[in-house]
């Protein structure tokens, strides 16, 4: 299993999609925060975050996502997440964040929800 952190972005049907893979922790969360911040400050109010390749995620990563969600919603948009791995979903469940973020099992469904 590749534990190294990678981040990428693309646009699907006009919706920005940021993909992260590997472990998102206190060391690797800042690049994700910067990427999301750059998109929201450039006027993108809705961003899909693809976490399908994420193998570990801590409270720092959750804080980055919550901050980005607040900015998106203030701008009238949203921050749908794509999660399939039960281990990652569990972190959102135990922190009560499954009721806060729209969560999808595929990028296609997440993009479709905001088009």
């Amino acid at each position, binding site marked *: 299993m590749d534990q190294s952190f990678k981040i990428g972005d693309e646009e699907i049907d006009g919706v920005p999609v940021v993909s992260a893979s590997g*472990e998102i*922790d*206190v*060391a690797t969360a800042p690049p994700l925060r910067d990427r999301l911040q750059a998109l929201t400050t450039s006027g993108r109010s809705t961003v899909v975050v693809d976490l399908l390749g994420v193998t*570990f995620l*801590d*409270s*720092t990563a*959750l*804080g980055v996502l*919550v901050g980005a969600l607040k900015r998106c919603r203030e701008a009238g948009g949203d921050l749908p997440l794509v999660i399939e791995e039960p*281990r990652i979903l569990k*972190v959102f469940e*135990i*922190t*009560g*964040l499954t009721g806060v973020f729209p969560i999808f099992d595929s990028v296609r469904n997440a993009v479709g929800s905001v088009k």
Partner: protein
Amino acid sequence: MSMVQRKTSTVSVDLSIPVQADLVVLARLAAATVASRAGFGVEDIEDLRLAVEELCLSLVGSREDGRLHLNYECEGDAITVNCWYEAEIAANGSRGTDTDDLSLRILDALVDEHGHELRDGRPSAWLCKRRTDGG
């Protein structure tokens, strides 16, 4: 890292790391190694890895100075992790944000017991996780 096997069922591991964001992974790695060696299942190991990360973050927050000391003690079906923070200017590294609350919720959910205290004037935290049958 040093490992002392006191008797058949007790293992004590000490780890001391500089407080740097990219080195907290070592605390997780040691937790996973001790838990795996103690026969913990994959689910329990993953729970412990995340809990130890949160324990460290609860002490140092986003600080990048001083040292973090961890002791992993495995006895029977339980692993206890003691963690304390040593810096020239001692202070609790609480991030003072919503992230602290998330950290607390994660610890509440993943371990059997956890706590914070000042030990000899140093911010300290501990947790205990017992092996589960389904782990």
